């Protein structure tokens, strides 16, 4: 890390000479280009690879990319036994990829037939185990059932089967296994409340967990928080993911995703100090960030107040992030929050700010920056007022004394009013009592 004062020096320069320098620094931004579907897909395996590919196909406007994604999804499904997904993909391809990617009824039938047989076999086995009352065998039986359902795309049944194994778990290893399976299925189903509860169940097991498992659990918890729009918690979870994760959890999440999700959530929700200590100085997380240099760069840019370049990176990343199955819903909110944070941070150290310079630094017009600032001031996020005539933003220092007087007087009159109203109501109630009592007499 650079020494602090040097950094702040460069920061000052940055603010004074924004714009001019921006054009000089033209770093190649790789992710600005079209998403390389094949490279992207190779990060994942299993069901999530298929769903991610299908998600891209659904949300992408470029026909070639759509077809590419569908083609890979088709190939991937053919390796598995999920006929339901297969039919869906074929319908989406709609014959656009030639005869090799048409409906393969024979394959479907054979897979389905085999599935029937296997199901029957599993049922028989499970019944046998149950009559014998051997816990371990029953657990295995249910587990096999879960795997079977999962492979065939019946996620609800898979979840039920996995959860049923719980009663037959004898060691904490079994419990962890059950929890991990349940988490996997719930993530696929999008049931993130289940995810949170099973993560906490897994963390409560008495024995020490393996580092990989811990990392996986952190990822799952982070995803759950992300879905619940609790970005700060999500960021914390992703930042805690250990380096052992590697590629071991790529049926759910790739290490690159941990960096992207964690980085963006942290930017949107952390303050400067937290950003420095938990993200930039975090040796663990730096390894993840190395995988996605754009995110690393934009976080550093943000921290050293090079907002224009930071926003550039964000803008370039946006198209690809919108194609991410977990992040797409949150991109807009996160971006807004990051931008607002940048605006707040920019104005924070100054008594007055020239709006022309600020607009320059944020690559927008003066009128635009005025609108954004207005919204933030109304929200009470920036304590300042705009001199619209001279286009200058002045910081506003609240007068504590006056504010206190104001509040005291207001509280006093509210109390006055409340007490009088209360006495009145009490008297009315009492009166009604008297009337009733009088009637009884």
């Amino acid at each position, binding site marked *: 890390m650079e020494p602090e004062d040097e950094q702040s020096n460069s920061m000052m320069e940055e603010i004074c000479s924004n714009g001019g320098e921006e054009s000089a620094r033209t770093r190649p931004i790789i992710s600005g280009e079209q998403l390389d579907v094949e490279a992207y897909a190779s990060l994942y395996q299993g069901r999530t690879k298929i769903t991610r590919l299908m998600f891209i196909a659904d949300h992408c406007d470029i026909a070639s990319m759509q077809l590419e994604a569908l083609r890979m999804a088709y190939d991937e499904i053919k390796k598995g036994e999920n006929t339901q997904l297969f039919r869906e993909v074929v319908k989406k391809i709609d014959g656009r990829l030639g005869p090799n990617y048409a409906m393969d009824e024979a394959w479907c039938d054979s897979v389905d037939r085999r599935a029937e047989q296997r199901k029957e076999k599993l049922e028989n086995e499970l019944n046998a185990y149950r009559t014998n009352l051997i816990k371990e065998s029953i657990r295995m039986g249910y587990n096999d059932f879960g795997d079977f359902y999962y492979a065939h795309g019946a996620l609800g049944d898979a979840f039920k089967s996995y959860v049923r194994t719980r009663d037959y778990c004898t060691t904490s290893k079994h419990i962890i296994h059950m929890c991990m399976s349940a988490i996997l299925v719930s993530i696929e189903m999008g049931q993130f409340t289940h995810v949170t509860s099973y993560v906490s169940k897994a963390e409560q097991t008495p024995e020490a967990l393996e580092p990989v498992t811990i990392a996986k659990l952190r990822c799952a918890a982070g995803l759950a928080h992300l879905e619940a729009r609790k970005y700060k918690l999500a960021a914390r979870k992703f930042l805690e993911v250990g380096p052992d994760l590697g590629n071991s959890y790529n049926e759910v999440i790739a290490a690159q995703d941990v960096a992207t999700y964690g980085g963006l959530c942290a930017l949107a929700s952390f303050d400067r100090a937290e950003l420095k200590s938990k993200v930039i100085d975090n040796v663990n997380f730096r390894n993840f960030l190395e995988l996605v240099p754009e995110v690393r760069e934009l976080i550093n840019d943000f921290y050293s107040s090079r907002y224009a370049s930071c926003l550039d990176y964000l803008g370039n990343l946006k198209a690809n992030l919108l194609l991410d199955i977990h992040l797409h819903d949150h991109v807009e909110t996160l971006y807004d929050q990051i931008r607002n944070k940048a605006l707040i941070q920019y104005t924070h150290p100054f008594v007055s700010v020239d709006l022309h310079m600020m607009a320059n630094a944020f690559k927008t017009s003066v009128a635009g920056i005025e609108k954004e600032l207005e919204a933030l001031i109304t929200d009470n996020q920036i304590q300042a007022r*705009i001199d619209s*005539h001279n286009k200058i933003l*002045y910081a506003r220092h609240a007068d504590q004394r006056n504010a206190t007087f104001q509040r005291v007087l207001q509280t006093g009159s509210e*109390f006055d009013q409340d007490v009088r*109203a209360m006495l009145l109501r009490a008297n*009315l109630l009492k009166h009604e009592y008297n009337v009733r009592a009088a009637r009884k007499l």
Partner: protein
Amino acid sequence: MQSIENLVTQIQGLSSNASDITALKDYLKAGEDLLRSESTRLLSFLDQLDPSKHSLGYLYFLEPCMYCSITKERANTLVPIIARFITSCSAEQIRYVPEKFINVCKRYKDQVLLLEAPIRGVGPMLTAIRKIQSSTEHLTTLHPEFLQLCLLAKCYKAGLSVLEDDIYEINLPRDFFLYCYYGGMIFIGQKRFRKALELLHNVVTAPMSSINAIAVEAYKKYILVSLIHHGQFSSTLPKYTSSAAQRNLKNFSQPYMELVNTYNTGKIVELETYVQTNREKFESDNNLGLVKQVVSSMYKRNIQRLTQTYLTLSLQDIANTVQLNSSKEAEMHVLQMIQDGEIFATINQKDGMVRFLEDPEQYKTCEMIEHIDSSIQRIMSLSKKLTAMDELISCDPLYLGKAGRERQRFDFDDFDSVPQKFNI
């Protein structure tokens, strides 16, 4: 056998001291039927009595006159007589038979209204209230009647003298509802919206076993005044509100709830079209004037919001952001608001800029300190009253009986002092 002449002499004889008056009261009570049967002749005897000395007797003679059908001519003769009686009668004597006095006053109000001259009733009615009430905290049946007269006569200021007293003792809930409702309207007329809100709020949250029309009308006005004064309205009622009110009020004031929703969008055009389309509904409730004030309050609200964000702003920009037609119009609005003390600003007409200033109040003048001191005193006396009330209730056998019955069995953990129902 009694005769009216007899009664008159008795009255003249027995009006000097307290014991005589008690005797006279019994005597007159016995003669009540006779007086009623002779009601047509009674007026002529009134000349023989002095309203200030023989107040009790005068009252007994006056009351039956009120029961026969009243024509305009008769009202014309009666009104001055009653007015004279009310202003000159002795307070001690009439308090022996308050219900008769109240009756006379009510009839008096009807007659004044019949003559279409409500203003004639305002003065005497105020005197009547002062004479009949035991203390300024006492709410009499005459309060609402008086306030209604004030409203009809548009003498809002006269009404204020009564409204500024804090009332705690209440005879009939209906009096209270009407008092607060009319009082709220008087404060609205005076544009003292904060007080108006307080009174209307009292009506809405008053304990009631079933919903009543007064509360519904009060709620409608409450919504409107709240929009004018605060620029917002929260539809959740406080939890001490009776369940009847909580269930029903919103259903009875649908157009108003929708008005709130349109207001919250912040778009002046939408609000105006909504008001235009629902004009008849508001008009039939006699609330159209208030609704119009709601619309104009929206401009104010928007301008006020600008003062929070801007130090200077051109009139044209103000006109654009608050959706006014021209900068001229914006200038008028800003000017009016500066005059009313709602914003602090200066207008520079040369380049059409408005400069918003901070609140100049520094809270260090003598008046401010006095004001704060008086508020503190007031609150201290209030909280004393509250404690006294609390003690009184916790000793009240009726309350204890009821509270004991509500709690079926006494466990040791049950000793929270007040059961939930009495959460006032």
